[in-house]
């Protein structure tokens, strides 16, 4: 069953085309990685699918909800971890999780239980009462990862999941993402890191120039193939086409 889909999405900012014509379909239980160069349209796609931004044209659906016309209802059922988003400056992580619990209608004993599990998983229990503005970037990222999963949503959108995390925590997060997918949930990851996509994603879509230009399943790569080669082949030729370097 399809969890996330878009059809001919287009979004421009003035003269800049962020999404040219993006169509994709992601099934329930997939861990889909959107891989692409800077400015490819990955973050714009996430912002549209999570109801934060309206496209110029095209349609989108997440768990059967239309994020354009039903942004709040869509966000009620999903988790979001944006790139470079910090927890509220003047709340401690403990207060922030309580805040998220209130907004998402999670009973406080359930919040406490889940926060305990996350602080152990990401090793930040000793920071629960530190005012967020005084946390390091890595600690802030741990807090933001926790809030995205606190209500155990069926679909989660993550922009650069491992940013600012140390290698040990990166491994734990990757293991968790795979386990979360195996439990039947859907995850949409946007990343620049090919090795991360290759390691955790069940399917990778290469986005360039605001379009989905290729798709590969890492599990189906041959012994002499790598996602990097696929990426360079497709993004390289797409870039050359844009620049008019290739003939018809």
């Amino acid at each position, binding site marked *: 069953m399809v969890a996330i889909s878009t059809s001919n999405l287009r979004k421009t900012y003035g003269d800049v085309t962020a999404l040219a014509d993006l169509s994709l379909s992601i099934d329930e239980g997939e861990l889909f990685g959107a891989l692409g160069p800077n400015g490819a349209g990955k973050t714009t796609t996430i912002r549209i699918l999570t109801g934060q931004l309206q496209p110029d044209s095209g349609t989108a659906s997440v768990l059967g909800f239309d994020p354009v016309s039903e942004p709040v209802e869509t966000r009620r059922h999903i988790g979001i971890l944006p790139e470079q988003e910090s927890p509220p400056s003047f709340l401690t992580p403990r*207060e922030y999780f309580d805040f998220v619990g209130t907004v998402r209608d999670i009973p406080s004993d359930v919040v406490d239980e889940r926060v305990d599990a996350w602080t152990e998983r990401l090793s930040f229990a000793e920071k629960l009462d530190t005012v967020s503005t005084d946390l390091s970037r890595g600690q802030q990222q741990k807090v933001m990862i926790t809030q995205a999963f606190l209500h155990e949503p069926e679909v989660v959108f993550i922009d650069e999941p491992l940013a600012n995390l140390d290698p040990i925590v990166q491994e734990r997060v990757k293991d968790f993402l795979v386990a979360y997918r195996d439990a039947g949930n859907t995850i949409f990851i946007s990343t620049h890191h090919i090795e991360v996509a290759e390691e955790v994603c069940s399917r990778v879509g290469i986005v360039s120039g605001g379009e989905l230009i290729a798709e590969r399943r890492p599990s189906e790569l041959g012994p002499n193939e790598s996602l990097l080669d696929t990426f360079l082949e497709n993004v390289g030729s797409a870039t050359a086409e844009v620049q008019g370097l290739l003939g018809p």
Partner: protein
Amino acid sequence: MTGSLNRRLFVGMLREEWRMHANLFGGARFAAFPLFVLALGAGAVWLLTTTAVATVSTLVLGVHALVFAFGLQTGTTAFLGRDAARNLLGDMTLLVFTARTLPVSQRRLLAVFLLKDAVYYSGLFMVPMALSFTPAVAAGQLAASDVALLWGTATTTFLLGVAVTFAGISLATRGVSGRVVALALGVGLAAAVVSGIDVVGYTPYGIYQGATVVETTVVLAAIPLLAVLGIAVYDPNYSTPARTAGDAYGRWRDRLPFRDDAVTAKTLIDVSRSSGGLFKIVFSGSILLAVGVFLLELAGEIASVDPAPGVTLGAILGLSAFTTYNWLTQFDDLDEYRLYPLDVADVLRAKRRAFLLVSVPTGVGFYALAVAWQSPTVWDALAGVVVHVGLQVYLFGVTVYLAGFSPNEFLFDTVLFAAFTLAVAGPVVPIVVAGFVVSAGTPAVLAGIAVGGVVLALAGGVLVRRATPKWERATRT
């Protein structure tokens, strides 16, 4: 090489300052801002001197006070550090913070930055502010040369404000408490006043008034001295130790009558934990109370009228709504709430509740103080409180409608600021003038003014309702 580098840094910082403002407010809109200041200032000078509400010398004093406050605020924004600047201006890195990555000393960057501030603000803001007094020159109340002098002393006042803040913040980065610095300044000032020193003479305003050579030299020397002190001790890598806090969110939420509204509780914590805490809202109210009482007494002296203090002070204190709303929206933005199942209406409802919990009681408290101090008639006091609450609700509506959740960013957007000025002046000026004119006032006239207050509150409600779809559209495209 050194001269060339300084020149390039100066030009780069000047361009950066312009682009920062142009990016925030739109190039043409920001470029028109000096013309707007000139038009607004000239109109105010003409109106206030023609109606004899204020003299030219009072207005000149007011300009110096305003510019000093502007200098203090500019210095705070610039030098509190990259993280603080980011909170206010968004995600940006200024050239003054590039010493970490480029082979340029922090001291050189700070010195050029101060010079840039002097040139930029003296040209864009002090020139039109000084030229605002042209109507007074035309009316023969001021010599043309005084306008040039005013420009010089206003610029000096601005720089003094920046230098004072910069030196204070620099000392704070070396562990000297801001409270200690403020206390030392206060004690020094009090000692000077008690010992009979003419403190005003040792200010740029004193220079305008014709200070002695010694006084002028002291004032002019103070600015570079403070700047050098600041440059010498400023630590750009300073950060406060990590703070811990108990669970205030739960306590706030339990106290509020709407337990499911997480954003209201968060907003109140944001304000209470930011610099100055909830006291800054009280401070803004006390400034307005002092200004209101000063104006009342001045009007009594100059125009020989006996104003209605209830209505007048109710209106003036109502202006605190803008600054309070500013504090309530200073520490978050709409995008951060888009991670959750919340929309513009939810956030706006929370801000309105926080406003009603904080701004209205504080304003009414100050109004009660003013009533006890100025002893209006019962009818005047009742009309005043209605006007005060009505104006607060109206200003909330106007600000939300025009500026959304970023009221502090639109002050240099000429079109928005002009609209805001008109929307505020429209009801406030007639009420204040009526307060001056009606004197003890008949109950019928005061009842009419009170009805005006109710109408303002209703207008505010309508604006808030219209703001919701407007900002929902504007922030998702």
